[in-house]
């Protein structure tokens, strides 16, 4: 009888489609590994920003978990809280916002990240955008002031380089951007002579002064003793976590590498406009400075490390092939630098990753490997 035959076959051979080679890596293992690798940077964040940073992290993770549970119950699918994907999203969202935040901003952003950016698109593995970054974009569009203007830092922290702590609370990237813009308006104003402490005799001199005065020392950027988003400050801890992920094989090295390399190269190469004033002749003007940026500053400051190692590498929202990932990484680097140098915002990692996430299906389509035996 045919029916009996089928069961016989199924008993003897497991009939499945490819791939047939399996590796014992599961979603929970990957997610909890990412979670653990993220923790050191959070610890530095809590140390630098104080206990309120811990609250932000806990509220964010809790609301992400609650959102995950609610959405999965509503959709009638299996509740998979223990796989850690919601916890990682919550943690990442907490890392890319300011520690001085109202609780409802954290709850709204974290909830949006899970409920809309992830479950409205079909749950884990179906989302187009990185949920944590989508949550951040949502919070930024809704609560502009608290998301961009309030950057706290604990008073009892000493900086690594011995420079005084920034008192204005502005992030290093914002300082650099606004002082370059300020130098132009000062040089073109009638009172340019008053500001010789900022303006140099040539554009090159001004730029050197700005970099010396405003750019935070790379040691502070590396250690994390700066103001900024909660978990983005400490480049060293993010690098540590990222390297562990690369060693575990969860992240392929070429994606973070292309992002950081593109950012560094373009930040060094692309021109910056600065103003100058010559007290001897009374002349003033504006110079366009090519090949003069500070690449180290740009890859250590802002969300570059966090984005490159933990957000762009999200398996769901990054291209499949190595070639695709390199294109993806270069795109992120280019957009980041363009937004940082010429855009309205001081930091562009969030939007550049979201924009390149949108392009992933296209990248995947054009980097699809040839079928064996197929023609080009």
């Amino acid at each position, binding site marked *: 009888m045919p029916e009996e035959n089928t069961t016989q076959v199924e008993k003897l051979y497991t009939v499945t489609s490819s791939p047939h080679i399996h590796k014992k890596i599961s979603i929970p293992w990957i997610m909890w590994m990412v979670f653990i690798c993220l923790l050191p940077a959070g610890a530095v964040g809590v140390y630098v920003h104080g206990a309120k940073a811990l609250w932000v992290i806990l509220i964010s993770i809790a609301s992400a978990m609650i959102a995950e549970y609610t959405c999965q119950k509503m959709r009638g699918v299996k509740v998979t809280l223990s796989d850690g994907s919601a916890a990682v999203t919550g943690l990442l969202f907490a890392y890319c916002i300011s520690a001085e935040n109202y609780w409802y901003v954290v709850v709204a952003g974290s909830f949006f990240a899970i409920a*809309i950016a992830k479950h409205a698109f079909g749950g884990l593995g179906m989302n187009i955008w990185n949920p944590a970054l989508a949550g951040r974009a949502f919070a930024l569009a*809704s*609560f502009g002031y608290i998301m961009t203007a309030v950057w706290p830092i604990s008073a009892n922290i000493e900086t690594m380089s011995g420079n005084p702590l920034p008192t204005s609370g502005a992030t290093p990237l914002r300082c650099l951007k606004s002082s370059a813009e300020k130098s132009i308006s000062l040089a073109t104003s009638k009172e340019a002579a008053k500001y010789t402490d900022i303006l140099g005799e040539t554009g090159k001199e001004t730029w050197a002064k700005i970099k010396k005065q405003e750019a935070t020392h790379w040691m502070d950027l590396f250690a994390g003793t700066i103001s900024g988003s909660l978990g983005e400050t400490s480049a060293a801890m993010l690098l540590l976590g990222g390297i562990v992920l690369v060693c575990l094989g969860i992240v392929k090295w070429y994606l973070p590498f292309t992002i950081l390399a593109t950012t560094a190269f373009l930040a060094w190469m692309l021109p910056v406009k600065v103003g100058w004033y010559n007290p001897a002749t009374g002349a003033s003007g504006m110079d366009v400075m090519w090949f003069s940026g500070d690449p180290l500053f740009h890859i250590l400051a802002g969300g570059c490390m966090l984005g490159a190692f933990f957000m762009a590498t999200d398996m769901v929202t990054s291209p499949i092939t190595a070639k695709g990932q390199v294109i993806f990484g270069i795109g992120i680097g280019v957009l980041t630098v363009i937004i940082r140098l010429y855009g309205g915002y001081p930091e562009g990692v969030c939007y550049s990753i979201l924009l390149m996430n949108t392009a992933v299906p296209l990248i995947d389509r054009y980097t699809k490997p040839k079928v064996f035996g197929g023609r080009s």
Partner: protein
Amino acid sequence: MESKKEFTKGIWAENPVFVMILSICPSMATTSNLSNAFCMGLAVIFVLIFSNIIISLIRKAIPGEIRIPCYIVVIASFVTITDLAMHAYLPLKIYEALGIFIPLIVVNCIILGRAEAFASKNNVWKSFLDGLGMGIGFTLALCIIGFTREIIGNGTICNYQIVSFFTSKNNNPNAWIEPISVFSQPAGGFLVIGLYLGLFSYLRRQKKLKEVAKAK
């Protein structure tokens, strides 16, 4: 009985926004608060009823080859009346908020769609009921979207603040919780319409499943 169905179909079963997904552009742009949404809905009801009646009256006189220009002329006349009347009698703030979307009712796909699909084939009474039903369905949809967007995005209903603790920190520094202002921006319009489309298609599917179960 049949004419009652012509009236009710526009409100639920063939709701222009949530079922036929027509006229999404004004329902995104004019729903940032409830009063704008309601006024836009009223304008569409008026134009829809009268254009349906007139087109139904002259349906046998319109040559098939140039029917769309004929419809446009009829619709445009009523839109002009509406535009001038609204400018004269509505608060200027609402008129300015609706802005270009009142003149754009001329090419509104609900009105053109009803003219083409219904009024040009049915008698005056049925066309009137169809226009009224579709117009009310559209207004209801707009009001639901506008209400949601205004209350979440701004903490108000028709520009009246409901509770003192739910407002932005600029208005009241002691506010306990702030509205999520993205909902009163265009991005929020997409979000709210998307979520309502999902909700209503879910409800329709549940209803259909129940009917199938009953039939069995």
